[in-house]
Every structure is written in structure tokens, then in C-alpha cells.
């Protein structure tokens, strides 16, 4: 067939479904110290699965990165970033409903 078959294939997984992350994984992926991840847990942005040692669902990574980016880029504290994230979630679910109704959102 074409050249694309000569390219190597990679082991992949769907982050949100097949992955559990440790506190260390999250710190590394977000390039932050553990205190900031712990603060995001205290604020309810991230919810660990079960008790210590903490494990996080794959979706936590995306949420943590958005909260930390907002915190860093817009000079707002993590509580403010948590509020923004909740509002963004709400906007996204409203957009999803509009899409279902047939708009282009």
C-alpha cells in the first residue's frame, strides 16, 4: 500500500478511560510541585479515586492543566481558576445542547 504503513505504530491508550495517574505523574505532566496539585484537590477541581496513595482518573490531567494555565497566564489564584473551570464546564454543556439542537457552536 502506501508509505504510511512503513511508519512505526505506537502503543496508545485513551487517557480518560484506560489510565490512572499518580500524584507524581500529574506533577510531571503539569510541570508543577505537589503542593499545587494538592491545592487543586482541596478546591475540588481534582477528585482522587479512593484514599491515599492517591490515584487520579485520566481526565484529571486535562482539568489540572487548564486550571494551572489559567492561574499562570491570567494571574488569578487557584480558587479563581477553579471557578473559571466550573463556568467553562457549564458553557461546554450548554454548547453541547445547542449542537444537538442543530446550531453550529
Amino acid at each position, binding site marked *: 500500500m502506501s508509505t*504510511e504503513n512503513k511508519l512505526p505504530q*505506537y502503543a*496508545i*491508550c*485513551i487517557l480518560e478511560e484506560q489510565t490512572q495517574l499518580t500524584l507524581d505523574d500529574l506533577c510531571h505532566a503539569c510541570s508543577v510541585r505537589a503542593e499545587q496539585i494538592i491545592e487543586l484537590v482541596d478546591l475540588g477541581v481534582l477528585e482522587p479515586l479512593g484514599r491515599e496513595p492517591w490515584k487520579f482518573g485520566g481526565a484529571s490531567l486535562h482539568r489540572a492543566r487548564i486550571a494551572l*494555565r489559567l492561574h499562570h497566564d491570567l494571574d488569578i489564584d487557584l480558587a479563581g481558576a477553579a471557578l473559571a473551570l466550573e463556568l467553562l464546564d457549564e458553557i461546554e454543556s450548554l454548547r453541547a445542547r445547542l*449542537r444537538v439542537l442543530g446550531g453550529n457552536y
Partner: protein
Amino acid sequence: MEYKDYYKIMGVARNATQDEIKRAYRKLARKYHPDVSKEADAEARFKELGEAYEVLKDAEKRAAYDQLGANWKGGQEFSPPPNWNSGFEFSGGSAGDAADFSDFFASLFGREFRAGGTGRTPPHAKGEDHHAKVLIDLEDSYQGATRTITLRVPMVDSQGHVVTKDRVLNVTIPKGIRAGQHIRLSGQGSPGAAQGAAGDLYLEIEFRPHPLYRIDGRDLYLDLPVTPWEAALGATVKVPTPGGIIELKIPEGSGSGRKLRLKERGIPGDPPGDLYVMLAIALPPADTEAARDLYRKMAQELNFNPRAKLGV
């Protein structure tokens, strides 16, 4: 390279105070932050804004930039004047996310600002993770697919210049993946330090708009036009689904907007999504005498007031 009009990018006058510049930056940063804004070019605007602010917030860099003069226009072909930089010494400091700054910035303020000042790397440090978005079609998720994607990766060459290289990857799109989910390719990010593992590559999945279906998670929505008699009397009609054409029974007495659920005909998964068919009654045009006669006959014979609920 192109001249960048940092004042115009920030929407401030050339004689703006540092406070005005800071306020303008904060306001625009909220507007164009890629996590907040849905504008297509938000990311580019945000980067451009960061670069402009990096220069204008810093008295030394701003003075140096101002020295180029006010006669340049954004986008104009530019090369730094001879002896550029001779009278200035930049105290530097970390430029934060400067890796994406333009060549224009780099030619004025040097490449060292672009490195981002990460400091010394411990020998066990894991390489950086990379993040990118991939656009796929609904069919790719429905059946699973292998897609060739090209990533533009900034790299530092032997002279310390940042160059962009194309990296081509063959990626398996797992069956059932949803918009907004991420594929993780272990070890496909930046190489680690001497004894460190390589970082990972994360691909965020986005769907191209589909001509037929609207997508919500794993559920699909399809508008299905039906005739008034199909809706009134019931009928079996052909309906496209991502898995192929099927026959759907329209129940007798269906109204416009009725939602019929085809269980597990959406995007596969655990649980699989459903396909919702929304009936839309299409009126035949009254463009022949025979058609007009039929409408007249209905008007005479059907005792129907669609506005009864409005009290008229």
C-alpha cells in the same frame, strides 16, 4: 522577517503608561486565552499578545523597541539596523513561555530569551510531554482507524536556533473515542535527560463537523425529513446510520420533532451511544394544480386548527 507592531497588538498608544499596558494585557489575555476563547485564532493571538507584553512591560526592552522608530507598520519586511543592540544591555530574566516568540522578537532580543530559562536538568529528569490536537471524522471513531498525522515540533539546532521540524506519526484512533478525549502515546514526547525516560505525547481528539449527524459524547442526532402522510399514517423508511442504511418504522400519528431512539447505533463503547432520529415533516410544494387541489381538499375535509392551544 516581518515587523511586529507591539503597540497595535496590545491596542495601546505608543506613549501608554506601564499601568495602561498592564491593564490592556490583562484584559486581552482573558479575552484570547485559548482555554477560554472559542475564536479560531485565539491561540495565535494569545501568543502574539504575550510576546508584545514581554517587550512593552520591560522598560529596557520597550526603550530598545521604541528606538526602531514609529514609522514601521505591522507585517512590513524588517531586518534589524546595523549596530542594533549596542547601546542596550538586557538584564533578561526568564521569559517564561518565550519558546514560541517570533523571529522578529528573537532578532531584537536574542535567542537566549527563547530557551525559557529552565535551568540545569537533573540526570533522571523525564522528558517534556507534548500536546497536540487531532481532527478526525466520526467514521474514524465508529470503526477505529489509523491516521497519519504531522506535528510541527520546535527543536534547537546545533547553533542554538529554534527550528520547526515536521514529525510524521502513524496513530491508531481507538474505536469509540469521543471528542475531547486524549490519546496518550507513551515515550513519544521529548527525550529525557541522560538516565530519564522520554516524555509522553498527548493528542486531543476533535471531530470535524459531520454533514449528517450531530455528535454529543457517543450519541448521534440525525434530522430525518418525512412526508405528512408518513408521519400521519406510519411508514417504514430508509435511514442512514454510520453502520449503513437501515429501515426505520415511523409510528402512526408522529408529530414534527418526534425523537426516535435507535439503541446502540451511535458511537461504539461501553456503553455504546444511541442514534436519535428527529422527525421533520416536509411539506410537498403546492406547485401544480393537482397538488393545490389536494391541499384544498384537506382544507375542506379536515377539521384541523393547529392554533387551538393559542385560543384563536
